[in-house]
């Protein structure tokens, strides 16, 4: 087998892990609260800045900077829910979309104001794993593994804990859960915190691979939305599988045709699948 093709496939799998992690939080929030956080990738950007500042300006060890990034984004997720989502929770979807869209511009502009437009990075260089002339980025490997761990942990949390069960109950029928003694408001806050923490986790993994700048959300935002819609908005398993479908189209398509065309292929495939299954591949 062509060794370069194997490398392209492995790179696709690793990219899929990163995208899956990003899609996970967004799907969770949509599935439960029924609001699309357009600014989700920009919350990841905020997490990256938190880690960058703590690590490079305050010499906080990277592990603690990452933990602070996760905790900070969990708190930020709660704040976003209380300040932006809760007031428009019962409004028309377009109003909710505009509110989170406004947050996107606010976060980008605020980051520009605070940090300028420069590209910054934490300067950590992780080793490269070489197996049979195939090079695998350790940073990507870690991101992939944490993506998997994050997905499994979330699955277990949702299946095995009371809050997880309550979150699933709200996702299934938000009108009836009140009768079962579930405090919807608490569940929304918990979901926003978990969604924010997942954005923080994604930030930890992306900061090892990408420069931080106020517009990095634009790099991932459209692809993540495509993945979530493809998997069925709110369907976490669907989003997970869709991440790998899209990443493999990008990787293998790019290898056989060209990089530009691979994204065209991915979007074309997305449009075709939307015709075939308008509610997403895994919609019930």
């Amino acid at each position: 087998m062509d060794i370069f093709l194997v490398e392209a496939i492995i790179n696709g799998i690793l990219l899929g892990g990163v995208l899956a992690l990003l899609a996970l939080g967004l799907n969770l929030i949509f599935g439960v609260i029924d609001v699309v956080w357009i600014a989700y990738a920009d919350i990841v950007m905020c997490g990256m800045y938190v880690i960058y500042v703590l690590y490079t300006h305050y010499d906080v060890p990277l592990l603690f900077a990452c933990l602070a990034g996760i905790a900070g984004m969990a708190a930020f997720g709660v704040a976003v829910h209380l300040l932006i989502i809760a007031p428009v929770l019962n409004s028309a979807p377009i109003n909710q979309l505009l509110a989170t869209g406004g947050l996107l511009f606010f976060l980008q502009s605020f980051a520009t104001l605070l940090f300028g437009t420069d590209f910054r990075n934490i300067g950590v260089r992780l080793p490269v794993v070489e197996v049979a002339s195939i090079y695998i980025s350790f940073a990507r490997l870690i991101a992939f593994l944490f993506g998997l761990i994050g997905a499994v942990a979330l699955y277990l949390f949702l299946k095995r804990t009371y809050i997880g069960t309550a979150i699933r109950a709200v996702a299934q029928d938000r009108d009836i859960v009140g009768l079962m003694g579930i405090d919807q408001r608490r569940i929304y806050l918990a979901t926003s915190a978990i969604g924010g923490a997942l954005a923080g986790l994604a930030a930890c993994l992306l900061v090892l691979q990408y420069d931080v700048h106020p517009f990095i959300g634009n790099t991932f935002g459209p692809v993540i939305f495509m993945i979530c819609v493809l998997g069925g908005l709110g369907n976490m398993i669907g989003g997970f599988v869709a991440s790998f479908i899209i990443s493999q189209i990008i990787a293998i398509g790019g290898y056989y045709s060209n990089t530009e065309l691979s994204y065209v292929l991915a979007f074309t495939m997305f449009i075709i699948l939307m015709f075939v299954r308008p509610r997403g591949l895994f919609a019930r």
Partner: protein
Amino acid sequence: MKTSRRTLLKNSVAAAAALSLDWRRARAQSETVRIGVVYDLSGPFAAGGSVASAVGTQIAIDLCNEKGGVAGKYKVVPVKADSQSKADVAINEVERLINQEKVDIIDGIYSSAHAVPLAAKVEEQKKILWITTAVATAVFKDRNLKYVFRAQIHSDQYGEAFAAFLTEHAKQKLGVEPKEVKVAIIHEDGPYGAGVAAADEAYSKKAGLPIVLKEGYSAAAPDLSSLVTKLKRARPDIISHIGYNPDITLFLRQAREGGLRFKMLFGAGAGYSQLDKLRATFGKDIDDFCNIDPVPAQLLDPKKLAPGLGELITLMVERYKAATKANDVPPHCSMGFNQTWILLNHVLPLAKEKYGGFDPEAVRKAALDVDIPPGGTIQGYGVKFFPPGTPLSGQNARSTPVVMQNAGEHIAVVWPTNIRTQEPVLPLPKSSVYAL
């Protein structure tokens, strides 16, 4: 004394004439030149050189105003706009400057993707578009523009310099004939990347350099690892990379992690000219990389330039460093400064003196009259615009690029050979993480 009707009429005319004279004088003293200045001050292009160009432009305006303004009399008032790294915003902002701010001259424009539609838009409205930084040849090629000017180099010249440098040094430095030097060209897919890549391809073919891969990608792509894999498969000796940022840092990082090796990498300005920022990310990894772009003025020997330009360069460098706290002054500062300086000090005074004002027609005629010999601007080249009716109407016929090489924290000029400040290092030394 009784005043006759004739005397009254005479006195009235005299008074009116005197008043009118005073009014005209007062008007001359207070007359200003309002210029729209458009750059990407936010979005990904900002850190890719657009802000540096904007700072250079502002320094030129400040220096002009400090000596009294255009021709020592007419203060320059910049009306600034942020095109946010988006073509639609650039178009809307220029529309606003022209229609609401009533500005006749637009100065700036970093991205070729913005310059291409803007050139058509401004030309249609018969206003002046004075491009400082965007380099795509496509902005001018076969469009017979009359109101759009660019003293800057154009993208075809990047390809010319790339192929000429390799042809000149292949045998001596790489020990092989040019026809054995395998070249790969990768580029962002906007007019800038596509334009320079097409020129690289055309001139490489002309010089007999075999091209083993030519591929475009979106500057916003989240992953370039399959491109790295394909480059490894193609095994080029030389890579020409035409990108903005953050695609440049993404590619270099994934290239290092993917084990891509080569003998030399050529950048084509944009992110590759932001040495401070690249070094902050990659440290010594980018040492000895080549970069083709207009020369940063401070690298030229001031003795070879017209009198006074050496001092001007020193002032520009001092002010840029004071404004940005940067160690390195990128070529983009020189681009913004130089083009604006040419407009304010060579074109506009002529427009006023010879053609009676700063209206687009006067500025257009004055621009076509400008004739600056080589050595007459801070970037070394002269200025003579191609006239209407020629394939590159509005483009400077005397602009020239240079090949630079990262030498530690500074940049050295390595081509053209007659003005080089350092012998080129080729291939990359074995100590480089990218060395073949």
